[in-house]
């Protein structure tokens, strides 16, 4: 367990990460968690307890759509993909996020006394 490396994700960020992963190809919940873990180089470990409620919320908000499909092992899994609305939402929110991090980065740039 890499609890010391885990982040507390800011509000709403998990949605953004999930949608980014889903944007690549239809994907089921377990794979989403794995993918986020890989892409963050093991820094982020999404708990099932947060993942599934978030997925369902996005589904009910019609940003994601889900269908049941067999996996390569032949089991049925619930695959999520982005809706048109979800794609637009992801685009907007990604830009917002970038702007926000740029701005926050600008301010936090350099070292301040007392903070190493």
């Amino acid at each position, binding site marked *: 367990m890499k609890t010391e490396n885990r982040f507390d994700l800011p509000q709403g960020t998990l949605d953004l990460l999930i949608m980014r992963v889903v944007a690549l190809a239809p994907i*089921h*919940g*377990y794979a989403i*968690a794995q993918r986020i873990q890989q892409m963050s180089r093991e820094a982020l470990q999404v*708990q*099932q*307890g947060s993942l*599934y*409620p978030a997925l*369902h*919320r996005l*589904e*009910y908000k019609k940003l994601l759509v889900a269908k*049941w499909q067999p996996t390569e*092992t032949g*089991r*049925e*899994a*619930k695959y999520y993909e982005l809706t048109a609305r979800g794609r637009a939402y992801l685009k907007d929110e990604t830009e917002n996020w970038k702007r926000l991090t740029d701005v926050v980065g600008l301010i936090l740039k350099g070292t301040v006394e007392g903070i190493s």
Partner: protein
Amino acid sequence: MSWLQRLLSRKQLESDLDKELRFHFETQVADKIRSGIPENEARRLARLEFGGIDQIKENCRERRGTLWFESFLQDVGYGLRQLRKAPGFTFTAVLTLALGIGANATIFTLVNAVLLRNLPVVDPKSLVRLGDRADCCQNSGPKSDGSYSMFSTQTYEQLKRTTPEFEELAAMQAGFENRAVVVRRDGSQEAAKPRMGEFISGNYFGMFGLQPAKGRLISDSDDVAGATPVAAMSFATWKNVYGENDSVVGATFWMNTKPVTVIGVAPEGFYGDRMSSTPPDFYLPIATMPDEMGGKGMRDPTQNWLDLIGRVKPGVAVVPLQQKLSAELKRIYAPDPHFSAADIAKVHLVLTAGGAGTQSMQENYASNLKLLMWIAGLVLMIACANIANLLLVRGMQRKAEMSVRTALGAMRTRIVRQLLTESLLLAGIGGLAALAVSYGGARMLLMLAFPGDQHLPISSRPSIEVLGFAVCVALITGVLFGVAPSFIGAKAPPADALRNGTRATAGGASLLQRGLVVLQAALSVVLLVGAGLFSQSLGKLQHTEMKLESKNRYILHINAQAAGYKDEQVNALYRTLEERFHEIPGVVKVGVSTFTPMEGNDDGYGVHLVGQPGIQTSATNIIVNAEYFDSVGTHVLMGRGITAHDTATSPHVAVVNEDFVKALFKPGESPIGHRFSAGDEPAQPYEIVGVVEGTSYTDVRRNGKRPMYFGPLTQPSEAGYAGAIVVETSHPMSDMESTARRTLMEINSNLAIQKFETFDAQIASRFTHERMLSTLMKLFGGLALLLATVGLYGVTSYTVARRTSEIGIRMALGADRTGVVAMILRSALLQTLFGLVIGIPVAFYGVTLVKSQLYELTTVSSDALLMAVAMLLAAACVAGVIPARGAASVDPVRALRSE
């Protein structure tokens, strides 16, 4: 997927959720096995990483947004089960709510219909009425306070001409209740029947913005002298009498023997310009009013007989308009010789809201209805106290249950919500039952208030407002008294509550519970005293000496003028009536007169002694035949009555009553032989030939205060045609009405019976109002007593249940049964006594508020008080004895073992 779809496809969503999470778990396990971990270990690790699967599921369910509704349904189902489990509690609570709220909804139905409702016309808010009093039916001359509410035809026309502020100013006959027209459809074989006809100005329907249901309505062109006489029919008459037959429109009807064409039917629901138990059947234009219907008087510029209602143009302010109309009225009255300069200075007119029409019924019933509203409110308070008590008791009984649930992990909010749902459910059921009660109650009330075949345009069906009112009261009661016990229930630290559980030995009912019972007892005693007083008042009224004989007397009314009789023909008619009615076997006396005792009419004229203009009074004039006094049972005290020898050619005489003598003569002075004049005109004076008892004619409250003089039928007088026939028979004759009808038909087929009643029924109908109040007060008093008894019983039996083990110990230690019964009874009676201590002064205060509605009672009578106290104590004994006997039959061994 919408919210509703999510709610409906719950099963599918559940299985999907389960499948999805299981897939995740299995894949995780499979991955771990692949990485070389043994299966058992892999499963254990995966389970650890996964966390509580049910917690995750619950979180996912919450995202659906339907959870609250599901748990609400769950709560409702659970609540219903709980209510079913305690049928005694549920029944008592629902009954209490149904009666408490139902009584209020009933009264509110009437208040809403009588006091708050506007006429069913276009934009009733822009209507104003000229005048603020509902006068009836015709008057003349200056008013002492200078405020005018009725106007003559000429005044109406002048006001209409000079006020462009009105879009329309319409006139309608004031107090048309007394002016039935006799109607027979042309070509039909049926006898002529009395119907209500109201005279209106041509712009009446236009002013109200009404459209005809059939044909056309009366317009200005119908309301001109010389126009073809036409009439519009009310929808109710068209429906009830003529079966919505289209042929009615355009048909000729004989009204008071004159042909009138019915041109159309007024819209459905329109009941005229005022709330009345006798709404008009026909609307007739003023200008074509024939003399037979009083047209001569109506064209007299000094006779006021019209109510005026107008629709003001937008933006017209009331105050300047009122000033302008007052000034105009002054100008109109100034040349009238009856008005002195001082009278003219006082002349003014008050504008009132006209949306509800002329509010004569509102004036009559407002104080009664307000009183009833208060009473119903008190009953509701008692009912609420009952509900509060029941719910409190129940809350405490369920403390242990709540503790178990809390201990098992139920959230406090969830418990409160559940208890709240339960009490709302109870309130809902109670509210529904209350609607049924109010429907039945309103019907009963209308029947009490307006007995016989009167057509009050009030529906007893609860309106939207009443529905809302009942639901609101039910909800407030439910929430208020549901929340307190639920908090008490949820607050308890589970461990404590579980430890104590039902083992409390000390304490019985809480102070709050006892307080509620005391309040109930106090309120019931107030209502019981009230009920006693109102029934005493009614008894006093009914048993007032009316100085008449009503046994085997029948009274019928005809309208000779409506049947086409002229002045020179009526004397012959009177003679024929006497003869024909005497021919009926069993008839003893036949009285003919203008009015009969306890009929309610009252025509007052100023009278003064001849030669002594300073000695004057206002007196009622009635003309009678020779047998009249005997027929109604009025005794002659001095001199003689009217006899057959008093004819048109004999000296002008009158018989006066005791009150007349009291008003005009000194004590001991004989009035016989004195002469007096009546009315404005210096008419032929009357010579007093006899004195009769002061029989009650309008209202027993005015006994001894109403001077009257009786003239012979055949001599000129102020009164109109005699229309009342009193028939005295030797034995009860149930077929008198049909016999009388036949007799009249034989005399003239146009002579219709306008009203037939036994003398007793006529007298009884004068007390309808009081009887209704008294009945309702008794009903509400009984209701209050019942509710208070149930409340006291509930608290006492709760106490007994709580103290079972204590009582067991007492009895094990040697207390006998009587001692136990006395102990329980003592506490029940103590609460009742506290209630009496509070209630009696309140009752005394309450009576000062309703004094005006009582007859000859100004404070709480000892009878009413004793009765109320006795009834309450008796009820308290019953409510106390039943649980007390239960307590005394406790088997000490079992009571102790049950701990």
